[in-house]
């Protein structure tokens, strides 16, 4: 056995993009696409020779050889599925806002979470994946009294779920700025911009630092280090405005261009959350295989 078998629940746009990313993985093998009815997504998977079920999670639970499951459905669906996956001994990587397990941002806390006894991790939000690394980059050297992020995504890349539950984005991201980003208080703002052609995802992070004596060079270096770490799994993650210090406020902006696996390149928001999920999946799979990465 040289690859860990994995499944995706939810053959929509996110699930399809995830599938292409997993197909490139060294440690994971796309063993099952799980839907609840025949759809473009299930046909797409079939076309690529991937086993498909349209009978939902019950079929998945019968596949004892599947060890990791990516949940790309809705918060309600994952809340219902999580205990079943746990019982079946499957590790859940949750891309919904359900947050059954702890928030995970690869460059901040993946190592720590892997040492913990958890088999369910949550991907926060797309905006969280793009901004929390930067919040953390600042707070780890200068502390953070307050962290605020503004994410702007193209209207076309915001799915029905995001649109119908936009408060989930602001509330979840704000909480993760605190829990993962290390700021005492967090605030998140999201803007949907309809410009044509669609704009790349842009993100601005503001942090009110605690240590006013912190050498600015340390903050700059920390940010550059984190940006290069994120670039390892999201090549289109670009620093747009390098850190600016204004009193005790640090401002930094990044742009996220997607890899265009299945979704268009302007959907950097969807690319980064999927890339983060696959990054985590690879690490978990490598560990199961007894390989350090």
């Amino acid at each position, binding site marked *: 056995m040289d690859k860990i078998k994995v499944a995706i629940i939810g053959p929509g746009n996110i699930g399809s993009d995830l599938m292409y990313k997993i197909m490139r993985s060294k440690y994971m093998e796309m063993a099952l696409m799980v839907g609840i009815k025949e759809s473009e997504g299930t046909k797409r998977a079939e076309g690529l020779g991937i086993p498909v079920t349209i009978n939902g999670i019950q079929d998945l639970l019968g596949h004892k050889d599947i060890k990791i499951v990516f949940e790309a459905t809705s918060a309600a669906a994952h809340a219902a599925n999580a205990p079943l996956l746990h019982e079946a001994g499957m590790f859940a990587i949750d891309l919904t806002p359900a947050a059954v397990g702890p928030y995970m941002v690869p460059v901040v806390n993946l190592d720590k979470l892997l040492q913990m006894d958890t088999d369910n991790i949550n991907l926060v939000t797309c905006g969280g994946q793009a901004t929390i690394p930067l919040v953390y980059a600042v707070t780890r050297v200068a502390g953070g009294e307050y962290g605020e992020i*503004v994410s702007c995504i193209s209207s076309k890349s915001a799915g029905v779920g995001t649109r119908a539950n*936009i408060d989930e984005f602001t509330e979840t991201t704000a909480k993760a700025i605190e829990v993962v980003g290390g700021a005492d208080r967090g605030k998140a703002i999201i803007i*949907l911009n309809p410009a044509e052609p669609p704009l790349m995802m*842009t993100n601005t992070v503001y942090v009110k630092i605690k240590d006013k004596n912190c050498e600015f060079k340390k903050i700059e270096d920390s940010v550059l280090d984190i940006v290069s770490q994120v670039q390892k799994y999201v090549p289109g993650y670009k620093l747009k405005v390098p850190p600016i210090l204004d009193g005790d406020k640090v401002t930094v902006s990044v742009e996220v261009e997607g890899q265009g696996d299945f979704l268009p390149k302007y959907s950097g928001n969807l690319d980064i959350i999927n890339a983060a999920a696959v990054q985590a999946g690879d690490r978990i799979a490598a560990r199961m295989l007894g390989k350090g990465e």
Partner: protein
Amino acid sequence: MGKRIYVADTTLRDGSHSIAHTYSIEQVKRIGQALDEAGVDLIEISHGDGIAGSSYNYGFQKTDEYELYSAAASVVKNAKLGILLLPGIGTIEDLKKAAACGVNAVRVATHITEADISAQHIKFAKSINMFVTGFLMLAHMSTPEAISEQAKLMESYGADYINIADSAGHMLPEQVAAVIKAVKAAVAIPVGFHAHNNLGLATGNTLAAIDAGATWVDGTIGGLGAGAGNTQTEVLAAVLSLRGYETNLNLYKLLDLDEQEVEPLKNHPQVIDSTSLMLGYAGVYSSFLLHVKRAAEKFKQDPRDILVELGRRGMIGGQEDMIIDVAYQLSKK
């Protein structure tokens, strides 16, 4: 008497932009009470960017917003007391807290093409018996047909009226008329209009909206507001009276309020200066004005260049962070 026109005064919300969100409890009480006594139908209060707008991105509020809502609620007896809520900034949890302070109306605002992000907020507000406005911003960036579809969505969520905002003060009277006419034909609920004066057309555009079927109009005392400011509520009182429309407005009380309370608040002339004119000309969100001036100074750029680039990039309401990006990129050229 002519038809009844309802007036929403947003001195305590849009006006907040002009004074960098520094309203105090005492100012809110005095202005709120005077507006109520002067007969406006809806008094809007909040950070300029709506509830929970207090931030690095839009500027921090000097006084806790919920204390301001409670202060306003303690003096407003007749008018509806409303806040603005932009989904993506404010949430239902924030709205619940405002309702607990005595706020009984909300205007849920989205970009002109993004009405569907307001569904949960409008439905929730109706479920607690609030008076709810579906508020569509930056109307110049879309077409009458497409705007009508967005208005219908907000109507379907339960909005009590639809307000169309020329947030950039970019529209000409005939364009305003075309949009209002189309929306009026598409929905069964009343339609309103919110103007900015960047091209000197705020009052004229408001009249064009009324002629096209609008029955709710926005104003601020002394025109206090983002960019070159809004339609002046006291001017509306005079003009609507000359037109023979029915309102509850008392012109003298509005004039007194302006002289005694609002004029002394102004820390810069509320006029069409070159930057606000350029906002209107380039079609950029009016609340960018003071942020652009600050960024221009910090990065030593011409504010007009920043505005033109923001317009070229298609930036919309709420994207104040991109002002820094544009100024930074221009400074590197």
